[in-house]
Each structure stands twice: as structure tokens, then as C-alpha cells.
């Protein structure tokens, strides 16, 4: 499984990365591999404020549909529109072209308590 060392992780397999003053989130390589071929990604409206742990969207693969959970509370500033035409980007580049949302964090300290790349790798490896 690929791990982005610059990101932090949620136990529910979302990653978050600081980019400038904003945060970016998508799902991990482990998550995209478990889901299989992704056929649909539903993302929130820009401007929406979502709390940590609440669903910000839905990812649907040939196998299953799963809610996507906000790893850090915040207000959406951008969503990855490329995913509506090519959701398989999440399979091919989970940490790059397959990003899902950008947001300003309401409480950036929530980022600091997320799993480190090493801790997430150990956690996901158990599955």
C-alpha cells in the first residue's frame, strides 16, 4: 500500500494534508484498493461547513457505496470537479489527482491528533 508521508490519516481511511492556509482531503491508497473500481464520487457544495466526523460525500465503487467523513472540521473552499468525469482518478492517484475537497479548518489542532503515516500504515495493515 502506498502512503503519502506528508499527509495525516483518519481511521476511516481519509487523508488530510496542509496546503498553504487550507487543508486538502481524499481517501488512502488502501481505501481505494479495498473499494475497487470507483464509478462515482459525490462531493459537497463549496461554502458548506462540515464538522469533523460528519459525512462530506459518498464514494461508490462496483462493490460498495461508502460515506466519506470529514477528518477536520472546516468550510469547503473547493472540490475536485475532475472526479465527476473521471472518478477512477481516485484509484490511479489517490493522493494527487484524486483529491476530493479543499477547506479552511475551524480548529487546525484536529489535524495534529490524526494518525501519522506510520501509525496509519500499521493500522490499515491489520485489516
Amino acid at each position, binding site marked *: 500500500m502506498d502512503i503519502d508521508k506528508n499527509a495525516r490519516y483518519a481511521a476511516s481511511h481519509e487523508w488530510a494534508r496542509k496546503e498553504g492556509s487550507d487543508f486538502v482531503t481524499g481517501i488512502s491508497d488502501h481505501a481505494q484498493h*479495498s473499494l*475497487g*473500481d470507483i*464509478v*462515482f464520487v459525490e462531493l459537497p457544495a463549496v461554502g458548506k461547513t462540515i464538522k469533523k466526523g460528519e459525512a462530506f460525500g459518498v464514494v*461508490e465503487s*462496483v*462493490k*460498495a457505496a*461508502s460515506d466519506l467523513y470529514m477528518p477536520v472540521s472546516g468550510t469547503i473552499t473547493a472540490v475536485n470537479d475532475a472526479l465527476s468525469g473521471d*472518478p*477512477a482518478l481516485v484509484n490511479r492517484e489517490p493522493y494527487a489527482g484524486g483529491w476530493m475537497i479543499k477547506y479552511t479548518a475551524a480548529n487546525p489542532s484536529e489535524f495534529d491528533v490524526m494518525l501519522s503515516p506510520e501509525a496509519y500504515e500499521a493500522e490499515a495493515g491489520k*485489516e
Partner: protein
Amino acid sequence: MNLTPEPLAYELSRPGRMGTVLPACDVPETALPKNLLRAELSLPELDELTVVRHFTRLSQKNFAIDTQYYPLGSCTMKYNPKANEQAAFHPGWRNAHPLAGDAHNQGALELMYRLQDSLAATGGFSAVSLQPAAGAHGELAGVLMIREYHRSRGQPQRRTMLIPDSAHGTNPATCAMAGLDVVTIPSDAEGGVDMDALRAACDDTVAGIMITNPSTLGLFERNMEAIAKLVHDAGGLVYGDGANMNAIAGIVLPVELGVDVMHYNLHKTFSTPHGGGGPGVGMVGAAPVLAPFLPGPVVVKKGDAYAFEMPAKSIGRLKSFYGNFGVLVRAYAYVRMMGADGMRRMAENAVLNANYLKHRVEKTYKVKYPRRCMHEFVAMGDVAEGIRTLDIAKRLIDYGFHPPTIYFPLIVPEAMMIEPTETESKETLDAFAEALERIAAEARTEPDLLHDAPHNTPVGRLDEVAAARCPILCYRG
């Protein structure tokens, strides 16, 4: 199997060809109203023999329990005895009409009354409704009953339904349809409900819990009574998902485990046909606390006569007329053939077959929870590098077996959910286990044989991504 792909009826069509030559018209011709004529309706033009061959060939390509083994987890694809069909074909049942009135349908009502009675006895329920037409329909009935119960007690704020993470996807979907909120309860290391998480979730917004026992992991929920007590003490009710009743029918009374309302699938446990889209019956049974809320009408006996009646606080109708009556006849025939002792042996043999098969399969495939299973078990298909459960499933088709349910339950990676049922012989179970063993060997020596499977079918591996993203839903000429 005939491996030639069958053309569409449209592709067999030839202009002007027809199956019937109508006699000369002996009344004055009247033109059809112009506004009702549609030029774009291109219907295929075929002769009778072509039509007969087309549909016969299609029927021969069917994968059916009458031709091959079908160990589809959570679906209880048991044999559907032909005696059931004989009973259902009787002209008295076949020609009964729902608008004939109770007086002219006493036989049909008596059968429904007796079936209600037998099903109530298998669950310990005080009353039963035969209305719902499928398992998820039965779930909706049960959840609406629970919602109505809380409203009737002046507690409409009870809107949270607790659902274990191993549950069928229909459970949360049902709650969404009923306008309730879902809180997911994680599983513990043993595959049971995490009791600490359940305790923490039991507050005064709880409407109830939806629980499947045995669970979709094929495991008996050992803490069932404690779970029911926690939820009851918090003021909630217990919904039992009876999809897995085949493992416990005739042995355990769900009401004694604390279940307040439950559905069974007559098209699973009670041997009526399914897999072709129905029709099914997801009857609901209720403990006294919820019996007045059952959907109706139900059949009651008044003196010597039978009549339809709405339960006192019924959530109303869920189905036109009286449910899928033909299925009820088949289930009643089955119940009477089996009797209480037979029902118990049915469940015992379902569990025995599953444990026998699990014992063989777990020598080659990982099994997530190794403890003794009930009527089904969950193995994992990642037997070699680069091989996934989908590859195993597709290769099984080449060996003449229907693949098990795959990638469910969601909490087991690469899941293969195998339910043998009690109606299969040891020889069939052995043949299936041998196929799985041979496929595991092929996975190491000839992995592409699996990646490209199935080979022995009219069409090969289908592009599921394209099917989901760019479906072609009608013939385009």
C-alpha cells in the same frame, strides 16, 4: 451450456415476418386515432418458431437451483420442493380472485390463517402479517411499527436506530426511508456487537436496534439477551432481521431472545422460489407490545368463519390486496411437510453443512472468524499475490458453480460469503470444495486463467465499470 451468445429478438427480426395470420376482418374497419399512433415504436417481427427457439435457448442459459449449486451467502438458495408447486397449481388456489369477497374465499383465508399461526409459532410471536412482499419490505414494516409505537407514546424524539456494522445494507436504507437516523455500532474482535459502543449509544433518542442473528458473518450473537436488555432499558425496541432464520428455525424462538418485531423471508427459509426477482414474502411477526401496529389486513377467525381485519393501531397497508398469495400456498405446503421436528432438522443440517464446508475450505482459504459458524461462513479470496475475490468468483463459474456472495459483509476484506443450505448432499459440498482448492492452485501457477475468467460462458468478463458509468438500457438498433 450452449456457449453461443443469443441474439436479441430485434436482431432476429425480419420486415413483414409474423407468427399469426389473422382471419379476414368480418366487421367494418375503424382507423386508430392518429394521436395514439407512434412511429418510433419499432417492435421485432418474428415467426412463432423463431420466438420459441429464442426463449427456449435463453431459458437454457439460466443458472438455476434446479440445474446447479448456488451457495450464495445470506440468500439461502435451498431447493424449492416440487410438491410446493403442485399445491400452488391447484385450480382452487390458482383461480381464486381477491375481489370475490371473504365469503367465497374461505379456503384461501383459512390457509393464510393457518400459515400466520404456524409462522407465529416458529418465532414465539403473538401475531403475524403476511403483507410484505420482500425482506426489505418486511424491514420497512417493522421499522414503521417501531416509529409508530414511540409516536403513540408521545415520544417522537426517538429517531435513532442502532445498526451493527455487519448488517445487511437494507437495514440503514430502511431507516432512511422511514426518516430515522442511523448510528452504526462496530463489531468486536470476535465478530459480535461491541457492547461498550452499544452502551454508549443507548440514550433517550434511541428508537431501537436492528439486529441480525446469526449475523451476516454466520456467527451466533452470544450477547443477544444482554443487547436486547440494554436497548429495552433505554426505552428502545428490538428489530430482528430474519434473513438468517434458516440457522435457528425450530430451535430458537426469537421473541425469547428479546426480539419485538421480526421479518422472515418465506422465499429463503420456507423454500419458495427466489433469485429471479421474486415474488417473495417478507412476513412480519410481532411480540404483544407491537402486535397492534402490524400492517394489514390480517386474517382472523370469527366463530367458524375467517375474515380480513386491520389490527387496532395498524400502520396500514403495504401491499395491494393480500400479499403474494401463490407464495403463501407454497410456504404453507412446506411448513406442513416439515412439521416442527422437520424444521429443527432443517436448521441443524444447514449448520452442519456449513461447518463441514468451512472445515474443508479453511485449509486453503483464510476464514476471518474461525469459531464454529452457523448456516454460513465468510472466507477470503486473496489466496495468492495479485488474485482477488472477484477472480475466484468468476473462475467458479467455469467449474459450474454459482459464485458465493462477494465483498459482503463490508467489514471483511475480500469477503466470500458461503451458505451451502441443508438441501445439498455431501458429494455436492465436496465437489464445490475441490473446485475452490483447484482454483487456489491455479491462482499460483496460472493466475491469468483466473484474471480472464469466466471462459466457459457465452460472454466473458464483463466491464462492470462501464456498466455502472455508461449503461446502455435499451436497444438502439
